[in-house]
């Protein structure tokens, strides 16, 4: 245990040292919330990967590959498609962000729909949908502590230990603001995705040459996708990839990455350069999971197989490294989520009703972050039998933001009424359908609850756009917003003319 926990402790110390050395006082809430758009592409790439891939992914992808087979590739495919979508929409979003000092995703909604209410609803959907991911993260840490203590820690103790570690870690995030998140993401990213990929490749080679396992020997059920006549339905694969791709940029913690960049180029470079690493890393995890399914120990407990295989291949040392890798990945994901939630609580929920100055904003954000951390931590100590369902539910919820976000960016006619009604009804529909049909919907040929809710949501959005068209003033304003992104250097006068309602300091 000294080896395993010792390695973890070393890593934590390294992160803290890096954060302290990089500590800079934030001069404004914009600094605090988005690190004043000053980070270049390599930081951006690592930061993006670290926020995108949660630590639990080492367990989730391999576990699904070992038990469910090739469908586990869906994680990688939707993650890559999310980057493609970013390429298509980034420029306009980033430009609006720069011109209007937008800090969060709800800020964008407020600008586009000329109302703060959409911002509040968007913030609530984002924060609520994100809590199950935080719980998963904390529980993943629980698995980590249990595995590294060789079973000596009980499940609840392990979760509490993991939560405490994150709370202590949060102390630094809260002090540092977004700048701290991005810097520590760098270190965590190197450990998790570069170090992790090295371990993954090593384990694959061990399984291929040490055990002689072959992909061609896999059971046909493991290498077949659900098609016509399957239990989950022929549209299931498409539904989960589509939801993932569309939902990706709806996460507040991911979306805010667009605003931490110094230019559109950085964002796009981060996406393009991060993609090959995601390919090796996530693709490798699937292959690892498929090959490891031949091991009887793994077949018995597929979800914990990352730790099991590390221990079998390299004893406590490799188990420790495997733990560091999961910890590093978890930190980044939990960090980004909590950071974005705090900013939204201060900026978009409280700030919509009572304008806050910089100091008040920072305090409100810190309190918000603490509240979200404590609620998630408390929930993760409860025995929640259907945790994976909560995570799936969270995706069905978050993609409802895709309608006002993407249609709002690409289509001028959408209005506030459609956006609000669509999201509220869509989110409610997703919750109801998901509780009745936890996996996929039989009468919809395998489509998931979120996709059906999305169709309802979009229909309402388009319906309102057609039946309740913009007033002349609003139409001119929206035309102007879109026109700003056609010319390369918008005039200051044009920007001022479009300014939305008075902002906080």
């Amino acid at each position, binding site marked *: 245990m000294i080896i395993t926990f010792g390695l973890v402790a070393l890593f934590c110390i390294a992160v803290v040292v890096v954060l302290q050395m990089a500590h800079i006082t934030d001069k404004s809430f914009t600094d605090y919330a988005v690190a004043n758009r000053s980070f270049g592409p390599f930081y951006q790439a690592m930061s993006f990967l670290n926020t995108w891939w949660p630590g639990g992914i080492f367990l989730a992808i391999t576990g699904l590959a070992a038990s469910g087979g090739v469908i586990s590739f869906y994680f990688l495919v939707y993650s890559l498609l999310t980057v493609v979508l970013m*390429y298509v929409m980034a420029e306009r979003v980033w430009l609006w962000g720069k011109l209007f000092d937008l800090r969060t995703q709800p800020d964008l909604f407020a600008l586009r729909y000329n109302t703060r209410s959409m911002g509040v609803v968007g913030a609530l959907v984002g924060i609520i949908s994100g809590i199950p991911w935080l719980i998963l993260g904390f529980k993943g840490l629980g698995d980590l502590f249990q595995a590294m203590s060789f079973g000596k820690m009980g499940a609840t103790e392990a979760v509490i230990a993991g939560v405490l570690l994150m709370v202590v870690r949060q102390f630094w995030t809260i002090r540092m603001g977004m700048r701290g998140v991005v810097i520590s993401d760098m270190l965590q990213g190197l450990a998790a995705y570069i170090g992790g990929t090295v371990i993954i490749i090593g384990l694959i080679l061990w399984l291929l040459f040490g055990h002689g396992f072959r992909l061609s020997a896999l059971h046909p059920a493991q290498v077949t*996708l659900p098609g016509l006549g399957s239990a989950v339905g022929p549209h299931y694969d498409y539904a989960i990839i589509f939801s993932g791709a569309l939902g990706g940029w709806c996460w507040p913690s991911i979306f805010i990455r667009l605003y931490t960049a110094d230019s559109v*180029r950085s964002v796009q470079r981060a996406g393009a350069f991060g993609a090959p690493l995601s390919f090796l890393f996530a693709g490798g995890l699937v292959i690892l999971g498929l090959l490891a399914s031949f091991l009887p120990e793994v077949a018995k407990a597929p979800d914990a197989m990352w730790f099991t295989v590390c221990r079998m291949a390299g004893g406590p040392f490799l188990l420790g490294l495997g733990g560091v890798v999961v910890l590093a990945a978890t930190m980044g994901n939990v960090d980004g989520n909590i950071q974005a939630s705090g900013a939204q609580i201060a900026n978009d929920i409280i700030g919509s009703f009572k304008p806050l100055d910089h100091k008040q904003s920072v305090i409100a954000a810190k309190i918000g972050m603490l509240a979200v951390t404590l609620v998630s931590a408390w929930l993760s100590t409860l025995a929640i039998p259907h945790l994976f369902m909560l995570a799936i539910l969270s995706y069905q919820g978050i993609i409802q933001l895709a309608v006002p976000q993407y249609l709002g960016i690409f289509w001028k006619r959408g209005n506030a009424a459609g956006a609000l009604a669509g999201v509220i009804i869509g989110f409610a529909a997703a919750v109801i359908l998901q509780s009745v049909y936890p996996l996929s919907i039989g009468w919809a040929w395998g489509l998931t609850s979120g996709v059906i809710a999305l169709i309802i949501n979009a229909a309402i959005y388009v319906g309102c756009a057609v039946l309740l068209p913009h007033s002349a003033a609003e139409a001119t304003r929206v035309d102007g917003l879109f026109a700003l992104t056609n010319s390369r250097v918008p005039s200051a006068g044009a920007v001022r003319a479009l300014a939305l309602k008075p902002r906080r300091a």
Partner: protein
Amino acid sequence: MPTAPRSSFVAIWFVLDAILALFPPIYWVAGGPTPLIAGIPCSIVYFVLLSAFIVGSLLAAYADDESRGAFKAPV
């Protein structure tokens, strides 16, 4: 001077990404264990090639953005 629009080569590549990943008949056909390609089940080959294809499109899009001066704006 306005920037040249994204090259149609990249735009088409992006559309192909979406079709190959999402269009159900494609994965109904490619998502099975056979034929074995270089000793590897077809569905695994499908996903690996699909993912590599999408990665390629992103790198191509970045290169295209650089060459058409999409990053030269002073914002």
